[in-house]
Each structure stands twice: as C-alpha cells, then as structure tokens.
C-alpha cells in the first residue's frame, strides 16, 4: 500500500505494508537514521518523534497510522544549517554524551517547549520521563531544556 505524510515539512510517499514500523520507514526507507532504536518495545524512548506535535515512540507506530500526519524527526530541528535553540542548549550544557538517546530527548524537549508549559524542573522531568538516558544522570539534559525555554521566551 501507499502511505503519504510529511516528514520535517516535506511530503513523502512510501509503498510498504501497513504494519511496517514507522521507525523502519524513517530509517530504512527514507534514510533518516537520526531516529534510533533502543529497545523496540516502547520502553526507552530513543525513537521518540513527533506525529502531529505529539511525542510517540516510532517503534510502536505502524506506518498506516502515520498516513496524513505531519512527522517531525531530529533531522528537522536544525534551522538552515545551524543548530536550533534546543540543540544549541544541549551542546552548551553538556546534555548530550554518547548521543544515542539525544534525538529522542530533543523531540520530547521540543514537544515540551511547544506546549508552553512553565519550564520548572518537575515539569521538565515529567516531560522526558519516557526517555531513558544512561550517561548524564539527566541533570544536564534538564538544564538544557530549561535554558532553551528561557532563550525562547526572550526571543
């Protein structure tokens, strides 16, 4: 079957079986390997992407459910070749170490920032609770999201 949706603003059409995981469509059919697989069963959040603005685990979404939606991945975060505000904040605070959870963390962070919620530590912890990180202890990730929130509110 053919499924049409947008990825990072660009329309795409894929000809695959409807139960194929959106994760595989992104990584293997569209070559967008920025989205990572950590567990394949929705526990780690490494494959977090945005579908119509909501954070979802791409390993749990069959491509059929993505038809007609707007999908955003880590590849869409940099603006005209420069890091986006949240990416820059991760770089400056040390929010990325090994980097494998980073794309998913960024997408969860993007959704949180877009929600307009007040960037308290508790709210940020809640927002990234579905994304496991084994390197940082989360403190510097939380700092990064808070910094990005501050910069966006100023901008």
């Amino acid at each position: 079957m053919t499924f049409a949706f947008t990825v990072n603003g660009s329309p795409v059409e894929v000809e695959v079986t409807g139960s194929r995981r959106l994760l595989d469509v992104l990584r293997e059919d569209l070559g967008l390997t920025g989205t990572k697989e950590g567990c394949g069963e929705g526990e780690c959040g490494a494959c977090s992407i945005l579908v119509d603005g909501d954070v979802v685990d791409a390993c749990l979404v069959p491509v059929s459910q993505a038809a007609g939606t707007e999908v955003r991945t880590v590849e869409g975060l940099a603006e005209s070749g420069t890091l986006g505000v949240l990416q820059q904040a991760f770089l400056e605070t040390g929010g990325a170490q090994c980097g494998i959870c980073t794309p998913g963390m960024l997408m969860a962070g993007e959704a949180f920032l877009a929600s307009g919620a007040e960037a308290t530590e508790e709210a940020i912890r809640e927002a990234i609770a579905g994304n496991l990180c084994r390197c940082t202890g989360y403190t510097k990730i939380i700092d990064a999201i808070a910094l990005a929130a501050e910069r966006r509110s100023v901008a």
Partner: protein
Amino acid sequence: MERPILTTRTVPPADAPAVPDATPLIIPTDAPAPGRARPAVPLRREGPAKLTGAALYADDLVVPGAWFGATIRSTEPRARLLGIELDEQFDWTRVVVVTADDIPGENVVSLIDSDQPVLVPVGGEIRHQAEPCALIAAADRGTLREARRHIRLRTERLRPTFDPLQSDREFANYTVERGDASAAMADAAAVIEGVYRVGHQEQLYIENQAMIAVPRKDGGMTVHGSLQCPYYVHKAMKRSLAMGDELAVVVQAETGGGFGGKEEYPSVIALHAALLALKCRKPVRMIYDRHEDISATTKRHPAVVRYRSGVSDTGELVAQEIEVIMDGGAYCTLTPVVLSRGVLHAGGPYRCANVRITGRAMATNTPPNGAFRGFGAPQTEFAAEMQINRIAEALDASPLDLRRRWVYREGDVTPTGQVLRESVGGPDVLEAAAEAAAFDRTLAQTRSMREGRTDGARVATGVGLALAWHGAGFTGSGEVKLASVASLELTDDGRIRILTASTEMGQGTKTIFPQIVADALGVEYDEVEIAPQDTSIVPDSGPTVASRTAMVVGGLLIKAAGQLRARVEAQTGRPFAASYRQAGPMRVDERFVPYPGEPFDDATYRGDAYPAFGWACAVAKVDVDLDTGEVTVRECVSADDIGRVIHPMLAEGQVEGGTLQAIGYATIEEMKLVDGRYLNDRLATYLIPTSLDAPRLRSILVEKPFSGAPHGAKGVGELPMDVGAPAVVAAIHDATGVWIHDLPATPERILAAMTDGTAPSAPGVSLEVPAPRTPAIEDLPRGGDEMPFRAPTDPAP
C-alpha cells in the same frame, strides 16, 4: 584546622594525624540553577553531529548488499552439544550456516584465558544459557527469521552450578597481606563482622551491541562496530580468523554508551559477523535487539564479601580480615582483573596496619560476567563502607568523624605496601561533600524526625555518606604490559592529527584530546584534528577502560606534542603556531614509560597497585515509604578528586551519570535468574532510573593533581560508581534503622528487614528450579519488523 574528634562512648579518641592545612581547590559548579548555561569552551567535538542525527552509529551505516546475521544460542545452562540439526524440509540454499568447524583459526575468544569458544563445537560443553552454538545469515530478515525456526540444537543436559560458593572451578585467587591481621584481631577491643552481597548489574548502554563485517578483496576483513577497544577486537580477529595485522581491520562506529559493556563483548559479535561474512562472501550485519543484548552479554560480577574489622581501645582501626568471592559466570573473560581490582580496593580508603584480603573468583553456569564501570571496586567498596558505617553505629560515633579519623592521608601505607606520597584527596572530598550537603546538620534533623515519628508515619527521611578511592589506570603491572602508544602527526598539507585508539563513547575523548594537544602546541582547539579509531590508521593506545584515557593516553599526547613542537620550532626557527603548516610531514610516536614509584609484583601483590588514586565522597538523602519500602533518592551531592580537571563540564557529566548508575545499583537494578537464565531480560522488566527516579545531582570537582602525569589528571569515569550505593544504603538505615546488607535495597528487602520477615533470596544467585517452560530466545517476538501486531501472514517488507 582543629584535630577531628571521634565522639564515642566506648572508645576514647586517640591522637589522630592532623588534617592538612591546604585548602582544596574546588571548582565552583554553579550548576544547580536550571536554565543556566556554563561557559564551556571547547564544546563537545562531535556534539553537533549527535544533535542533528548526522552521527553514524553501527546500525546507521548503509552497506549495500549486506546480509543479516543471527546467533543460535543454547537454552540450557549446562549441556553436552550432541548435534546441530537442520530441518531437511527447509530450503537452506538461501542461508549460510556457520558452526565451529568453519572457524579458520583458533576457536577461542581471545582474552585473558583461552577458555571461551567462539562457537561451542559439536561434542563440546555448553556452559550457559545463551551460549552461541551456531550462526546463520540470509539476505533478508524474513528468510533469516524463517531459518532460525528450522535449526535445532540436540543436547544432553548436565548438572549446572549456580552458587559460586559451591563451585569447584576457580578463575583466579589473590591474597593481599600487611602486618598480622589475626593477632591484631585477637587483641582488638571491638570486632565488627558483616557479610555483604551484591548481584548482577546490566550496563544498559542505550545502543545495543552492533557489528558489521565487510569482507575485502584482498582477503581481509573489516568490522565496523560499537566498541570501546579496537585492538581487543583486532587481536581476537587475528587469532580466530587466522589473519595477519593488516588483513584484520577494526573501525569504531559512533558508540552509544559502553560503561565496560563494550570492552570485551564486541570481540564475540565481531567474530560472529566476520565468520558469517567469510562464508557468504557478503557483508553481514549483526545488530542485537535489547532482549538478546540483556540475555547474552556481560554483567557486573555478583559478589559476596565477608568482613571483620578490629578497633583498638584507643579508637584506631587495627585489623581488617576480608574475604571476597566473585561469580565470574561461565567463562573467564576479564574476571581475574576485576577480582584483582576488587581485592585491592576492598579495605576502603582507610589506614590500617594489619590487613588480610583474600579473593576468589568462581565459575558458575550463568552468562559470563565482565567489565562494568568500577570493575570490581563498587562491589567491595560497598562492603567496606557498610562496614565503616556499622562500626560507627557500634561505637556511637559520627560516620563523618570516624572517616575523618581513619581516611588515608599523605604518607600512609596501603595493604600492598604502597606509600601514598601525593595527590591524596580523601580528606578533601570528605569535607567538601559533607559541607556542601550540610551532613552534620541534616543528620541531626533526620535524627530528631526519627525520634519524633509516630506510628502513623508514612514516610521516613534519612541521610547517608560514603567515601571511596579508585586506582587510576590499569591495575598493577598492567600499564607496563600494555605499553601504549599515542601519536601526533603533521600531515604534508599542514594539518595536526591525533592518532590514538582511544574511543569516544560519550565521555569526551574527542573533545579533551584536541583540547590538551592544542594547549601544548599553542594553537587553537579547532586546528587539531582527531583521526578515526581505525586499526589501519591509529596505533594501539590500549583499551578505553579503567579511567585511563585522560590520564595515561592524554599524558602521552602531551609529551608527543612537546616533542612535535620542539622539532618544528627547531626546523623553522619560528613559533610552532606560526610555522607548523609548512613543516610537515612529521610524526611523533610516544610510548608509555612507567610512572614513578615501586613496581608492582604480581606474584606477591606488593608494590604500587596504581600510580595514583581518585577519591570520592557522596552524601545521599532519601525518603523511604514505610508502607511499601519504596526508596526515593531526594538529593545526592558528590565531591570527586580527579586530579587536574581538564574539562569541568564533561567531568561533571561523568560524575553525575556514574552517580545515577550507582543509585540504580543501590535501589532497583537486579537481574533475577532461574535455571541460570536472566528472567528480566527486557527493558520492561530490567529497570534503570528515569528522570523521575533521579534526584538533582550536584557534583563538586576537587583538584589534587598527580605529578606523574604531565597534566596532573587522574581520571574520573569509574570513581562515582564506588560511592553512590553505600551512601544510599546508609541513608536508608538513617531513615528506617535497618541495615540492608544485600544490593539492591529493594522494597522487598527493606520491608523484610523492618518486619523481621523473610528476605528475598540472595542477589546474583540463580534459583535451581527449572522455570516453567519459557520460550527460547529465538522463539520470542523480536524488534525490527517482527512486532506482535504483525499478523503471521503479513508479508515481510
């Protein structure tokens, strides 16, 4: 500064050595306020690639025409392999099958011992659940999945051993002895005994093990993978594939965390991928899913530590008798070195004239255990710190004051006879953490809360403290034997390139190396490149383990930079920065020379066990739910003396991440085993701390530079892993009044201790009873395109 006073009723204070006057240099962290960026220049070198999704991890590499590989594993803990049966009804022409007979070289995963086969041969003994017995590969995943359903292992079950205390197969034993522990114990005024047990811990890097083998036209083989130690894999390939230095090539892909888990295991998966690639003459991808990764790869060694401490009537620690038993699992892997480090750290960072430490590592029929951040020390230092806290309780002394009195100071002598001549930051980190966490005041508060607690109270708060030391670099004579090389080159087109095999796995190698080289050469950070970790390009700088990269390899690079700079300036007569672009090509290879000190004698376990030690103190504050036994860690403040700090932000990242791994080890991370098989072998059942489980982590970096390294750095990676667990368990005791001797301190263990109920079984020891029939690994639904929602008839994509 005032001499610390031991407050005790039973043991009067004696003359303790004066606290050195030198105030530690503490780098202000400024970190706690969310939303505050620290000026952190240089920024992570590969950060932008990781933040945009451009960084290529092994599974991201596109290799045209690659087949998919899979491992056929044992599903019994111990058995004789009688045959490997291929279903005749299946079309095997589309699949390659590799058995032990296909191995061109030795059927050995090259490590310390030669006991682990690459694949169990027919007639050979299967020694653990998940042991590799055959390999298959196919051009597509659907065929591969189908094929694995048509291959069966015929076995004869043998009686397994699960309890290391019952095992008669020993991997290693060591004895460290100083003074006369037996006589001193007999004369001690008080003797405190304890038995402490810790279980397996999974590294749980978020990127699973992954390797892609690519056969080359010249008959060689290149593997690209997620790994810490390119030359370990290289050595293993040469031996099992019977290839020379140039034919076997290992290239590190971007690596999504290691923590020791990608120290030795990548040799196994690389050999498997390479054997399949040799046979099908195509590139082969071996990408584990999480279930296979947890089921089959190495864990932290479980251990039982028996401890006796003697205290004199003047309040001195006069005798320590310590027995360490570690469970190595089915094969040796790195177990002797893990045990060695565990034994050498077992006394904790405390002065004692009479010490006997014995250690034994035993085999069991469980998957082999291996390297994990801390490498034996977290196990024994948990025991040491539990013991110190229990001594403090027995003597009615403050745990802080007791440590102030006993902690090593300059000039003290360790159990191996090593004189701690310099860079002894134990007292400094103790004071820094205690002050930052207001330990005394918090302890007084929790005490008054405890005394005022009513029967209806639901939550109890406690605070705990732990102190540790961690030897920097390889143990004993290890660095001398490694003889690492790090190189710097000036290319003919005027670029400065760092050539080392030290890998980046998040800890910051690719940032700090250019940083220190640029500093030594007097050029900008961006002018220094770093060559890929590819064994055909870089020399063997040793493995990226043991907190040795910054100290050992970084030190070699500074020396190499000094030489390169001098040569260029001599040749051009101008400053390096102004003249190097026209001075190449030129290359400097710097080989390790021993640090000053007494050489370590492997036979007697005397001498300098490590060139220097890092020192760490953690103060944890917890809430314990008195109804459920659930622990919430509210705060954790750490102070770490890592010598000269190269990059504060990256170093803090190491401390914070290591601390949370230690908190997980203390509270929730436990592998359960039945019949030698991990039961909770998925991320839904093996839990690690989430952002909601983690406290805000505060790290204080203390600098007591080590003069043996040109930059004074000592290493940071493992240190925080040693203190988190005993600090949390001390805090649980402060809250509840019960000691939890077994890790992790789960709600079940805490409730059992509080109610005198039956505690769960010992951590790390498999239950004998065969589990109700559970599906074999290959029968379980897997990731990828095999999700449960797929109808069986659905064609594979």
